[in-house]
Protein backbone atom coordinates (compact mmCIF):
# COMPACT_ATOMS: atom_id res chain seq x y z
CA UNK A 1 0.00 0.00 0.00
CA UNK A 2 1.35 3.42 -0.89
CA UNK A 3 2.05 5.81 1.99
CA UNK A 4 -0.68 8.30 2.86
CA UNK A 5 1.35 11.21 1.56
CA UNK A 6 2.08 9.22 -1.57
CA UNK A 7 -1.63 8.66 -2.03
CA UNK A 8 -2.19 12.38 -1.63
CA UNK A 9 0.25 13.24 -4.39
CA UNK A 10 -1.12 10.50 -6.61
CA UNK A 11 -4.56 12.09 -6.19
CA UNK A 12 -3.10 15.44 -7.11
CA UNK A 13 -2.05 14.05 -10.46
CA UNK A 14 -5.64 12.85 -11.05
CA UNK A 15 -6.98 16.32 -10.32
CA UNK A 16 -5.43 17.54 -13.57
CA UNK A 17 -8.21 15.75 -15.47
CA UNK A 18 -11.27 17.33 -13.84
CA UNK A 19 -13.59 20.01 -15.26
CA UNK A 20 -12.11 23.49 -15.00
CA UNK A 21 -12.96 26.97 -16.12
CA UNK A 22 -10.30 29.63 -16.52
CA UNK A 23 -11.48 32.84 -14.95
CA UNK A 24 -9.95 35.53 -17.13
CA UNK A 25 -11.65 38.50 -15.45
CA UNK A 26 -9.25 39.89 -12.80
CA UNK A 27 -10.59 39.49 -9.27
CA UNK A 28 -9.59 42.09 -6.72
CA UNK A 29 -9.47 40.33 -3.39
CA UNK A 30 -10.55 41.86 -0.09
CA UNK A 31 -6.92 41.81 1.05
CA UNK A 32 -6.05 44.21 -1.78
CA UNK A 33 -4.24 41.79 -4.08
CA UNK A 34 -5.60 40.82 -7.49
CA UNK A 35 -5.74 37.38 -9.04
CA UNK A 36 -6.39 36.74 -12.72
CA UNK A 37 -6.42 33.90 -15.21
CA UNK A 38 -7.02 31.43 -12.45
CA UNK A 39 -8.65 27.98 -12.60
CA UNK A 40 -12.01 27.26 -11.01
CA UNK A 41 -12.79 23.56 -10.87
CA UNK A 42 -16.47 22.65 -10.96
CA UNK A 43 -18.93 19.85 -11.61
CA UNK A 44 -22.50 19.85 -12.88
CA UNK A 45 -25.34 17.34 -12.58
CA UNK A 46 -28.54 17.15 -14.61
CA UNK A 47 -29.31 19.36 -17.60
CA UNK A 48 -29.97 23.05 -17.99
CA UNK A 49 -33.46 23.24 -19.53
CA UNK A 50 -34.43 25.38 -22.48
CA UNK A 51 -35.87 28.18 -20.35
CA UNK A 52 -32.77 28.16 -18.17
CA UNK A 53 -34.92 28.31 -15.07
CA UNK A 54 -33.72 25.16 -13.32
CA UNK A 55 -30.14 25.97 -12.26
CA UNK A 56 -29.22 25.42 -8.62
CA UNK A 57 -25.82 26.54 -7.35
CA UNK A 58 -24.59 24.51 -4.40
CA UNK A 59 -21.79 25.83 -2.19
CA UNK A 60 -19.64 23.32 -0.36
CA UNK A 61 -18.49 23.46 3.25
CA UNK A 62 -14.95 23.65 4.68
CA UNK A 63 -13.72 20.22 3.63
CA UNK A 64 -16.11 19.62 0.74
CA UNK A 65 -15.48 19.87 -2.96
CA UNK A 66 -17.35 20.17 -6.26
CA UNK A 67 -18.35 16.49 -6.28
CA UNK A 68 -21.76 16.88 -4.66
CA UNK A 69 -23.28 13.55 -5.58
CA UNK A 70 -22.58 10.33 -7.44
CA UNK A 71 -19.07 8.99 -7.15
CA UNK A 72 -16.22 11.37 -6.46
CA UNK A 73 -13.75 10.51 -9.27
CA UNK A 74 -10.75 11.52 -7.15
CA UNK A 75 -11.50 9.74 -3.89
CA UNK A 76 -13.77 7.05 -5.37
CA UNK A 77 -16.18 7.72 -2.51
CA UNK A 78 -19.75 8.99 -2.61
CA UNK A 79 -20.28 12.72 -3.12
CA UNK A 80 -20.62 14.72 0.10
CA UNK A 81 -24.32 15.57 -0.38
CA UNK A 82 -25.57 12.36 -1.91
CA UNK A 83 -28.41 12.33 0.67
CA UNK A 84 -29.95 15.52 -0.74
CA UNK A 85 -28.81 15.79 -4.35
CA UNK A 86 -29.26 13.26 -7.15
CA UNK A 87 -31.94 11.58 -9.25
CA UNK A 88 -35.27 11.64 -7.32
CA UNK A 89 -33.61 13.23 -4.30
CA UNK A 90 -34.69 16.51 -2.66
CA UNK A 91 -32.67 18.48 -5.19
CA UNK A 92 -33.68 16.23 -8.05
CA UNK A 93 -31.06 16.13 -10.79
CA UNK A 94 -33.69 14.73 -13.19
CA UNK A 95 -35.34 18.11 -12.85
CA UNK A 96 -32.66 20.57 -11.83
CA UNK A 97 -29.26 21.54 -13.17
CA UNK A 98 -26.95 21.43 -10.17
CA UNK A 99 -23.65 23.27 -10.22
CA UNK A 100 -20.92 23.20 -7.60
CA UNK A 101 -17.46 24.74 -7.75
CA UNK A 102 -14.43 24.05 -5.62
CA UNK A 103 -13.74 27.20 -3.56
CA UNK A 104 -10.62 29.20 -4.30
CA UNK A 105 -8.12 28.42 -1.57
CA UNK A 106 -9.23 24.79 -1.84
CA UNK A 107 -7.32 21.82 -3.18
CA UNK A 108 -9.60 20.09 -5.67
CA UNK A 109 -8.51 21.91 -8.81
CA UNK A 110 -9.36 25.56 -8.09
CA UNK A 111 -6.65 28.12 -7.44
CA UNK A 112 -5.26 27.44 -3.99
CA UNK A 113 -2.07 27.38 -1.94
CA UNK A 114 -0.83 24.27 -3.68
CA UNK A 115 -1.30 25.80 -7.18
CA UNK A 116 1.87 26.90 -8.95
CA UNK A 117 2.85 30.48 -8.30
CA UNK A 118 3.78 31.90 -11.76
CA UNK A 119 6.40 34.14 -10.14
CA UNK A 120 8.38 31.27 -8.63
CA UNK A 121 7.19 28.23 -10.59
CA UNK A 122 6.64 26.55 -7.23
CA UNK A 123 3.45 26.05 -5.23
CA UNK A 124 2.29 29.22 -3.47
CA UNK A 125 2.31 27.84 0.05
CA UNK A 126 1.95 30.80 2.40
CA UNK A 127 2.55 33.25 -0.46
CA UNK A 128 -1.04 32.57 -1.44
CA UNK A 129 -3.12 35.66 -0.60
CA UNK A 130 -5.48 35.46 2.38
CA UNK A 131 -8.99 35.16 0.99
CA UNK A 132 -12.49 35.86 2.30
CA UNK A 133 -15.93 34.33 1.80
CA UNK A 134 -16.73 37.28 -0.46
CA UNK A 135 -13.67 36.49 -2.64
CA UNK A 136 -14.75 32.85 -2.78
CA UNK A 137 -18.26 33.82 -3.89
CA UNK A 138 -17.13 36.42 -6.41
CA UNK A 139 -14.83 33.86 -8.04
CA UNK A 140 -17.77 31.50 -8.46
CA UNK A 141 -20.12 34.11 -9.89
CA UNK A 142 -18.08 34.24 -13.09
CA UNK A 143 -19.01 30.60 -13.65
CA UNK A 144 -22.66 31.59 -14.25
CA UNK A 145 -21.84 33.58 -17.36
CA UNK A 146 -19.64 30.76 -18.56
CA UNK A 147 -22.58 28.34 -18.23
CA UNK A 148 -25.05 30.80 -19.78
CA UNK A 149 -27.17 31.36 -16.68
CA UNK A 150 -28.61 34.83 -16.05
CA UNK A 151 -30.54 33.97 -12.93
CA UNK A 152 -30.34 30.90 -10.75
CA UNK A 153 -33.42 29.17 -9.40
CA UNK A 154 -31.72 28.69 -6.06
CA UNK A 155 -28.45 28.94 -4.17
CA UNK A 156 -27.94 26.61 -1.25
CA UNK A 157 -25.36 25.10 1.06
CA UNK A 158 -24.76 24.17 4.68
CA UNK A 159 -22.24 25.44 7.20
CA UNK A 160 -19.60 27.44 5.27
CA UNK A 161 -21.77 26.73 2.22
CA UNK A 162 -24.58 28.63 3.98
CA UNK A 163 -22.28 31.58 4.59
CA UNK A 164 -21.55 31.65 0.86
CA UNK A 165 -25.32 31.63 0.21
CA UNK A 166 -25.76 34.72 2.39
CA UNK A 167 -22.78 36.43 0.80
CA UNK A 168 -24.00 35.61 -2.70
CA UNK A 169 -27.45 37.06 -1.96
CA UNK A 170 -25.93 40.21 -0.49
CA UNK A 171 -23.44 40.74 -3.32
CA UNK A 172 -25.50 39.54 -6.30
CA UNK A 173 -29.15 40.04 -5.25
CA UNK A 174 -30.42 39.89 -8.84
CA UNK A 175 -28.75 36.60 -9.67
CA UNK A 176 -30.91 34.18 -7.76
CA UNK A 177 -34.64 33.69 -7.33
CA UNK A 178 -34.38 31.89 -4.00
CA UNK A 179 -31.85 30.93 -1.35
CA UNK A 180 -31.51 28.26 1.33
CA UNK A 181 -28.77 28.95 3.87
CA UNK A 182 -28.53 25.88 6.11
CA UNK A 183 -26.99 25.59 9.59
CA UNK A 184 -24.84 28.68 9.29
CA UNK A 185 -24.26 32.13 10.67
CA UNK A 186 -23.97 35.66 9.34
CA UNK A 187 -20.83 36.23 11.37
CA UNK A 188 -18.42 33.70 12.78
CA UNK A 189 -18.74 33.40 16.56
CA UNK A 190 -15.87 33.51 19.06
CA UNK A 191 -16.35 29.81 19.74
CA UNK A 192 -16.08 28.99 16.05
CA UNK A 193 -13.01 31.16 15.58
CA UNK A 194 -11.47 29.40 18.59
CA UNK A 195 -12.16 25.96 17.12
CA UNK A 196 -10.68 27.01 13.79
CA UNK A 197 -7.64 28.37 15.57
CA UNK A 198 -7.23 25.02 17.31
CA UNK A 199 -7.23 23.32 13.91
CA UNK A 200 -4.68 25.75 12.50
CA UNK A 201 -2.42 25.50 15.54
CA UNK A 202 -2.47 21.71 15.25
CA UNK A 203 -1.24 21.96 11.65
CA UNK A 204 1.36 24.62 12.39
CA UNK A 205 2.69 22.70 15.40
CA UNK A 206 3.57 19.76 13.15
CA UNK A 207 7.30 20.17 12.29
CA UNK A 208 6.61 18.74 8.83
CA UNK A 209 4.44 21.78 8.11
CA UNK A 210 7.64 23.87 7.90
CA UNK A 211 5.96 27.26 7.50
CA UNK A 212 3.76 25.88 4.77
CA UNK A 213 6.72 24.71 2.65
CA UNK A 214 6.16 20.97 3.12
CA UNK A 215 5.28 20.54 -0.55
CA UNK A 216 8.91 21.17 -1.52
CA UNK A 217 9.71 17.79 0.00
CA UNK A 218 6.57 16.08 -1.34
CA UNK A 219 5.22 15.45 2.17
CA UNK A 220 2.11 16.44 4.16
CA UNK A 221 1.99 17.44 7.85
CA UNK A 222 -0.36 14.53 8.34
CA UNK A 223 -0.29 14.39 12.14
CA UNK A 224 -1.19 18.03 12.49
CA UNK A 225 -3.80 17.86 9.74
CA UNK A 226 -5.36 14.74 11.29
CA UNK A 227 -5.69 16.47 14.68
CA UNK A 228 -7.25 19.48 12.94
CA UNK A 229 -9.82 17.16 11.39
CA UNK A 230 -10.52 15.47 14.73
CA UNK A 231 -11.37 18.87 16.24
CA UNK A 232 -13.81 19.36 13.40
CA UNK A 233 -15.43 15.99 13.85
CA UNK A 234 -16.09 16.60 17.54
CA UNK A 235 -17.78 19.89 16.71
CA UNK A 236 -20.00 18.31 14.05
CA UNK A 237 -21.65 15.92 16.52
CA UNK A 238 -23.80 16.63 19.55
CA UNK A 239 -23.05 15.54 23.09
CA UNK A 240 -26.09 13.28 23.08
CA UNK A 241 -25.42 11.91 19.60
CA UNK A 242 -21.85 11.07 20.52
CA UNK A 243 -22.92 9.39 23.75
CA UNK A 244 -25.48 7.28 21.92
CA UNK A 245 -23.12 6.34 19.11
CA UNK A 246 -20.03 5.54 21.17
CA UNK A 247 -20.76 5.78 24.88
CA UNK A 248 -17.84 4.17 26.68
CA UNK A 249 -17.71 1.26 24.28
CA UNK A 250 -14.28 -0.27 23.80
CA UNK A 251 -12.72 -0.81 20.39
CA UNK A 252 -12.55 -4.56 19.69
CA UNK A 253 -11.31 -5.42 23.14
CA UNK A 254 -12.76 -6.75 26.37
CA UNK A 255 -10.93 -4.47 28.79
CA UNK A 256 -8.62 -1.48 29.05
CA UNK A 257 -5.17 -2.00 27.62
CA UNK A 258 -3.53 0.34 30.11
CA UNK A 259 -1.83 2.11 27.23
CA UNK A 260 -2.45 5.11 25.00
CA UNK A 261 -3.70 3.09 22.08
CA UNK A 262 -7.28 3.72 20.95
CA UNK A 263 -9.07 1.80 23.72
CA UNK A 264 -12.38 3.58 23.22
CA UNK A 265 -14.46 3.45 20.08
CA UNK A 266 -14.70 7.21 20.02
CA UNK A 267 -10.90 7.47 19.93
CA UNK A 268 -10.70 4.98 17.14
CA UNK A 269 -13.37 6.89 15.22
CA UNK A 270 -11.50 10.17 15.55
CA UNK A 271 -8.19 8.64 14.51
CA UNK A 272 -9.79 7.01 11.51
CA UNK A 273 -11.53 10.23 10.42
CA UNK A 274 -8.38 12.26 11.01
CA UNK A 275 -6.00 10.08 9.04
CA UNK A 276 -8.46 9.32 6.23
CA UNK A 277 -8.78 13.06 5.71
CA UNK A 278 -5.02 13.45 5.17
CA UNK A 279 -5.40 11.44 1.98
CA UNK A 280 -7.62 13.98 0.31
CA UNK A 281 -6.95 17.40 1.74
CA UNK A 282 -4.14 19.92 1.74
CA UNK A 283 -3.05 21.30 5.11
CA UNK A 284 -2.46 24.84 3.82
CA UNK A 285 -5.95 24.86 2.32
CA UNK A 286 -7.37 24.28 5.80
CA UNK A 287 -5.47 27.32 7.05
CA UNK A 288 -6.76 29.54 4.26
CA UNK A 289 -10.37 28.38 4.24
CA UNK A 290 -10.79 28.48 8.04
CA UNK A 291 -9.37 32.01 7.93
CA UNK A 292 -11.96 33.00 5.33
CA UNK A 293 -14.69 31.66 7.65
CA UNK A 294 -13.30 33.57 10.64
CA UNK A 295 -13.24 36.83 8.70
CA UNK A 296 -16.86 36.35 7.69
CA UNK A 297 -19.07 39.04 9.20
CA UNK A 298 -21.73 40.10 6.73
CA UNK A 299 -22.98 42.94 8.93
CA UNK A 300 -19.56 44.57 8.77
CA UNK A 301 -19.80 44.89 4.99
CA UNK A 302 -22.87 47.10 5.16
CA UNK A 303 -23.37 50.39 6.94
CA UNK A 304 -26.43 49.80 9.05
CA UNK A 305 -25.60 46.15 9.62
CA UNK A 306 -27.16 42.92 8.53
CA UNK A 307 -30.61 44.38 7.83
CA UNK A 308 -29.04 46.58 5.17
CA UNK A 309 -27.43 43.54 3.50
CA UNK A 310 -30.87 42.21 2.56
CA UNK A 311 -32.72 45.50 1.92
CA UNK A 312 -35.01 45.77 -1.12
CA UNK A 313 -34.43 42.18 -2.13
CA UNK A 314 -36.89 40.00 -3.96
CA UNK A 315 -35.02 36.79 -3.11
CA UNK A 316 -37.12 34.20 -1.31
CA UNK A 317 -35.33 32.65 1.64
CA UNK A 318 -35.64 29.44 3.59
CA UNK A 319 -33.45 29.23 6.68
CA UNK A 320 -32.97 25.81 8.25
CA UNK A 321 -31.31 25.02 11.58
CA UNK A 322 -30.86 21.83 13.60
CA UNK A 323 -31.81 21.71 17.26
CA UNK A 324 -28.66 19.95 18.51
CA UNK A 325 -26.18 21.93 16.38
CA UNK A 326 -23.88 23.74 18.81
CA UNK A 327 -21.48 24.96 16.13
CA UNK A 328 -24.05 27.04 14.24
CA UNK A 329 -26.86 27.22 16.74
CA UNK A 330 -30.57 27.73 16.18
CA UNK A 331 -30.13 31.14 17.78
CA UNK A 332 -27.52 32.21 15.22
CA UNK A 333 -29.75 31.01 12.39
CA UNK A 334 -32.72 32.82 13.90
CA UNK A 335 -30.69 36.02 14.01
CA UNK A 336 -30.54 35.78 10.22
CA UNK A 337 -34.32 35.32 10.13
CA UNK A 338 -34.76 38.38 12.35
CA UNK A 339 -32.56 40.49 10.06
CA UNK A 340 -34.44 39.28 7.01
CA UNK A 341 -37.74 40.09 8.69
CA UNK A 342 -36.51 43.52 9.62
CA UNK A 343 -35.54 44.18 6.02
CA UNK A 344 -38.97 43.02 4.86
CA UNK A 345 -37.62 40.04 2.93
CA UNK A 346 -39.66 37.00 1.97
CA UNK A 347 -38.40 34.46 4.51
CA UNK A 348 -39.37 31.04 5.81
CA UNK A 349 -37.71 29.29 8.70
CA UNK A 350 -37.74 25.75 9.99
CA UNK A 351 -35.91 24.15 12.89
CA UNK A 352 -35.33 20.42 12.50
CA UNK A 353 -35.41 18.49 15.77
CA UNK A 354 -32.54 15.99 15.82
CA UNK A 355 -29.73 14.64 18.00
CA UNK A 356 -27.26 14.50 15.15
CA UNK A 357 -25.69 17.93 15.61
CA UNK A 358 -24.20 20.08 12.89
CA UNK A 359 -23.61 17.06 10.67
CA UNK A 360 -27.39 16.67 10.24
CA UNK A 361 -27.46 18.56 6.97
CA UNK A 362 -25.32 15.84 5.39
CA UNK A 363 -27.30 12.94 6.83
CA UNK A 364 -30.51 11.18 6.02
CA UNK A 365 -32.81 13.44 8.09
CA UNK A 366 -36.26 12.88 6.54
CA UNK A 367 -37.83 16.05 7.95
CA UNK A 368 -34.99 18.16 6.61
CA UNK A 369 -34.91 16.52 3.20
CA UNK A 370 -38.67 16.89 2.85
CA UNK A 371 -38.52 20.59 3.70
CA UNK A 372 -35.73 21.13 1.21
CA UNK A 373 -37.70 19.40 -1.54
CA UNK A 374 -40.96 21.22 -0.78
CA UNK A 375 -39.26 24.58 -0.95
CA UNK A 376 -37.23 24.05 -4.11
CA UNK A 377 -40.16 22.53 -6.00
CA UNK A 378 -42.52 25.36 -5.03
CA UNK A 379 -39.85 27.94 -5.92
CA UNK A 380 -39.42 26.34 -9.32
CA UNK A 381 -43.15 26.69 -10.03
CA UNK A 382 -43.01 30.37 -9.09
CA UNK A 383 -39.84 31.06 -11.01
CA UNK A 384 -41.31 29.45 -14.13
CA UNK A 385 -44.37 31.70 -13.85
CA UNK A 386 -42.26 34.78 -13.29
CA UNK A 387 -40.16 33.99 -16.32
CA UNK A 388 -43.28 33.42 -18.42
CA UNK A 389 -44.60 36.88 -17.50
Amino acid sequence: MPSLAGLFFWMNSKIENIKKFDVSKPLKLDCGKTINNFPLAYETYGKLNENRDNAVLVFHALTGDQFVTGKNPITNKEGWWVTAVGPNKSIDTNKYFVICANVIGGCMGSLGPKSTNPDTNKPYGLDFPVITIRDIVRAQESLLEHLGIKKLLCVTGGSMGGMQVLQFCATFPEKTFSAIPIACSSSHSAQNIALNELARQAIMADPIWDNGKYFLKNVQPKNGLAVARMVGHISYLSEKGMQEKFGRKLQEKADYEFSFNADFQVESYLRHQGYAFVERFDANSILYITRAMDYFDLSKQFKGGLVEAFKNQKTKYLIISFSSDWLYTTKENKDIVIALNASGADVSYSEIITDKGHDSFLLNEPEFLKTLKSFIDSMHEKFKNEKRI
Partner: protein
Amino acid sequence: MKKEFKVIADLLPNNTRVLDIGCGDGSLMTFLRKEKNIEVRGLELDKDNVQTCIHKGLPVIQGNAETELHQFPDQSFDYVVLSQTLQAFYDPEKVLRDLLRIGKSVVVSIPNFGYWKVRTKLLFFGEMPVTKTLPNTWYNTPNLHMCTIKDLFNFCDEKNIEIKKVIGVNENNTSFIKKNNLEIKNLFSKLGIFLIG
Protein backbone atom coordinates in the same frame (compact mmCIF):
# COMPACT_ATOMS: atom_id res chain seq x y z
CA MET B 1 -62.70 28.28 3.17
CA LYS B 2 -64.47 28.65 6.48
CA LYS B 3 -66.82 31.55 7.14
CA GLU B 4 -64.49 33.11 9.69
CA PHE B 5 -61.68 33.48 7.14
CA LYS B 6 -64.07 35.05 4.63
CA VAL B 7 -65.02 37.68 7.23
CA ILE B 8 -61.37 38.29 8.09
CA ALA B 9 -60.43 38.53 4.40
CA ASP B 10 -63.16 41.14 3.88
CA LEU B 11 -61.60 43.28 6.59
CA LEU B 12 -58.25 43.34 4.80
CA PRO B 13 -57.80 45.75 1.86
CA ASN B 14 -56.06 44.60 -1.33
CA ASN B 15 -52.30 45.06 -1.84
CA THR B 16 -51.42 45.30 1.84
CA ARG B 17 -48.84 43.46 3.98
CA VAL B 18 -50.34 40.94 6.39
CA LEU B 19 -48.79 38.76 9.09
CA ASP B 20 -50.85 35.70 9.99
CA ILE B 21 -50.01 34.51 13.51
CA GLY B 22 -50.73 30.81 13.88
CA CYS B 23 -51.28 30.51 10.14
CA GLY B 24 -51.97 26.75 10.30
CA ASP B 25 -51.83 25.07 6.92
CA GLY B 26 -51.84 28.45 5.18
CA SER B 27 -55.38 28.38 3.78
CA LEU B 28 -56.08 32.01 4.77
CA MET B 29 -52.69 33.12 3.41
CA THR B 30 -53.31 31.34 0.10
CA PHE B 31 -56.67 33.07 -0.28
CA LEU B 32 -55.33 36.50 0.64
CA ARG B 33 -52.46 36.24 -1.76
CA LYS B 34 -54.47 34.91 -4.66
CA GLU B 35 -57.66 36.94 -4.34
CA LYS B 36 -56.44 40.19 -2.82
CA ASN B 37 -52.81 40.40 -3.91
CA ILE B 38 -51.82 40.69 -0.28
CA GLU B 39 -48.18 40.17 0.68
CA VAL B 40 -48.49 37.49 3.35
CA ARG B 41 -46.18 36.12 6.02
CA GLY B 42 -46.99 33.42 8.53
CA LEU B 43 -45.85 32.34 11.97
CA GLU B 44 -46.67 28.78 12.96
CA LEU B 45 -45.73 26.51 15.84
CA ASP B 46 -46.59 23.11 14.42
CA LYS B 47 -43.84 21.67 12.21
CA ASP B 48 -46.24 19.71 9.99
CA ASN B 49 -48.17 22.88 9.26
CA VAL B 50 -44.89 24.69 8.56
CA GLN B 51 -44.04 21.91 6.13
CA THR B 52 -47.43 22.25 4.41
CA CYS B 53 -47.00 26.02 4.02
CA ILE B 54 -43.51 25.65 2.58
CA HIS B 55 -44.88 23.06 0.19
CA LYS B 56 -47.49 25.60 -0.95
CA GLY B 57 -44.77 28.19 -1.46
CA LEU B 58 -45.99 30.35 1.41
CA PRO B 59 -43.41 32.21 3.52
CA VAL B 60 -43.73 30.84 7.02
CA ILE B 61 -41.54 31.07 10.09
CA GLN B 62 -41.58 28.23 12.58
CA GLY B 63 -41.94 29.78 15.99
CA ASN B 64 -44.00 30.48 19.08
CA ALA B 65 -46.06 33.66 19.20
CA GLU B 66 -45.85 33.67 22.98
CA THR B 67 -42.06 34.08 22.96
CA GLU B 68 -40.92 35.03 19.50
CA LEU B 69 -42.87 38.06 18.34
CA HIS B 70 -39.89 40.28 19.18
CA GLN B 71 -38.36 39.31 15.84
CA PHE B 72 -40.85 41.42 13.93
CA PRO B 73 -40.05 45.15 13.80
CA ASP B 74 -42.47 47.88 14.92
CA GLN B 75 -45.24 48.69 12.44
CA SER B 76 -43.75 46.37 9.84
CA PHE B 77 -47.14 45.06 8.69
CA ASP B 78 -50.38 46.79 7.74
CA TYR B 79 -52.37 44.08 9.50
CA VAL B 80 -51.63 41.26 11.90
CA VAL B 81 -54.17 38.45 12.10
CA LEU B 82 -54.67 36.20 15.10
CA SER B 83 -57.39 33.62 14.66
CA GLN B 84 -58.86 31.89 17.73
CA THR B 85 -55.65 31.60 19.70
CA LEU B 86 -55.61 34.65 21.97
CA GLN B 87 -57.26 32.61 24.71
CA ALA B 88 -54.53 29.95 24.53
CA PHE B 89 -51.60 32.19 25.51
CA TYR B 90 -50.18 32.40 29.01
CA ASP B 91 -50.16 36.16 28.75
CA PRO B 92 -52.75 37.30 26.19
CA GLU B 93 -52.30 40.96 27.07
CA LYS B 94 -48.59 40.88 26.29
CA VAL B 95 -49.23 39.09 23.00
CA LEU B 96 -51.91 41.60 22.08
CA ARG B 97 -49.56 44.49 22.85
CA ASP B 98 -46.94 42.91 20.61
CA LEU B 99 -49.44 42.48 17.78
CA LEU B 100 -50.40 46.14 18.07
CA ARG B 101 -46.73 47.07 17.94
CA ILE B 102 -46.05 44.99 14.82
CA GLY B 103 -49.20 45.82 12.87
CA LYS B 104 -50.80 49.17 12.11
CA SER B 105 -54.06 47.32 12.79
CA VAL B 106 -54.84 43.93 14.28
CA VAL B 107 -57.58 41.42 13.53
CA VAL B 108 -58.33 39.11 16.47
CA SER B 109 -60.99 36.46 16.52
CA ILE B 110 -62.16 34.63 19.63
CA PRO B 111 -64.52 31.75 20.31
CA ASN B 112 -67.27 33.43 22.31
CA PHE B 113 -67.73 31.93 25.77
CA GLY B 114 -70.86 34.06 26.08
CA TYR B 115 -72.66 32.16 23.31
CA TRP B 116 -76.03 30.89 24.59
CA LYS B 117 -75.25 27.21 24.07
CA VAL B 118 -72.10 27.58 26.12
CA ARG B 119 -74.00 29.35 28.84
CA THR B 120 -76.78 26.76 28.98
CA LYS B 121 -74.29 23.92 29.19
CA LEU B 122 -72.81 25.42 32.31
CA LEU B 123 -76.07 26.73 33.74
CA PHE B 124 -78.33 23.71 33.25
CA PHE B 125 -75.90 20.81 33.12
CA GLY B 126 -73.19 22.14 35.40
CA GLU B 127 -70.51 20.96 33.01
CA MET B 128 -67.72 22.76 31.19
CA PRO B 129 -69.10 23.44 27.71
CA VAL B 130 -67.99 21.35 24.76
CA THR B 131 -69.22 22.77 21.44
CA LYS B 132 -68.17 22.90 17.81
CA THR B 133 -66.06 26.00 18.37
CA LEU B 134 -64.86 24.74 21.77
CA PRO B 135 -64.28 21.06 21.03
CA ASN B 136 -61.97 20.19 23.93
CA THR B 137 -62.82 19.02 27.41
CA TRP B 138 -61.68 20.81 30.56
CA TYR B 139 -58.58 18.65 31.05
CA ASN B 140 -57.14 18.83 27.56
CA THR B 141 -58.19 22.24 26.34
CA PRO B 142 -55.38 24.56 25.20
CA ASN B 143 -57.60 27.48 26.17
CA LEU B 144 -56.25 29.05 29.34
CA HIS B 145 -58.07 32.36 29.21
CA MET B 146 -61.57 31.89 27.86
CA CYS B 147 -63.45 35.14 27.36
CA THR B 148 -66.64 36.49 25.85
CA ILE B 149 -67.10 39.10 23.16
CA LYS B 150 -68.19 41.46 25.91
CA ASP B 151 -65.01 40.73 27.90
CA LEU B 152 -62.72 41.59 24.99
CA PHE B 153 -64.85 44.61 24.20
CA ASN B 154 -64.48 45.91 27.76
CA PHE B 155 -60.79 44.97 27.82
CA CYS B 156 -60.08 47.18 24.79
CA ASP B 157 -62.03 50.03 26.37
CA GLU B 158 -60.13 49.74 29.63
CA LYS B 159 -56.74 49.53 27.95
CA ASN B 160 -57.46 52.37 25.54
CA ILE B 161 -57.20 50.14 22.49
CA GLU B 162 -59.26 51.58 19.66
CA ILE B 163 -62.01 49.24 18.45
CA LYS B 164 -62.57 49.87 14.74
CA LYS B 165 -65.02 47.09 14.03
CA VAL B 166 -66.46 44.06 15.78
CA ILE B 167 -68.25 41.36 13.82
CA GLY B 168 -70.24 38.53 15.34
CA VAL B 169 -70.41 35.27 13.45
CA ASN B 170 -73.13 32.65 13.91
CA GLU B 171 -73.16 29.84 11.34
CA ASN B 172 -73.41 31.75 8.07
CA ASN B 173 -74.75 35.00 9.49
CA THR B 174 -72.58 37.92 10.39
CA SER B 175 -73.49 41.15 12.08
CA PHE B 176 -71.76 44.25 13.34
CA ILE B 177 -71.50 44.56 17.06
CA LYS B 178 -71.67 47.96 18.74
CA LYS B 179 -72.10 49.05 22.31
CA ASN B 180 -75.90 49.24 21.93
CA ASN B 181 -76.35 45.63 20.77
CA LEU B 182 -73.46 44.10 22.68
CA GLU B 183 -75.59 42.19 25.21
CA ILE B 184 -77.73 40.44 22.62
CA LYS B 185 -74.90 39.77 20.13
CA ASN B 186 -72.78 38.40 22.95
CA LEU B 187 -75.52 35.83 23.50
CA PHE B 188 -76.02 34.81 19.87
CA SER B 189 -72.54 34.91 18.29
CA LYS B 190 -70.32 31.86 18.20
CA LEU B 191 -67.31 33.91 17.23
CA GLY B 192 -66.24 37.49 17.67
CA ILE B 193 -63.92 39.12 15.15
CA PHE B 194 -62.29 42.36 16.29
CA LEU B 195 -60.49 44.92 14.17
CA ILE B 196 -58.46 47.00 16.59
CA GLY B 197 -55.45 49.31 16.81
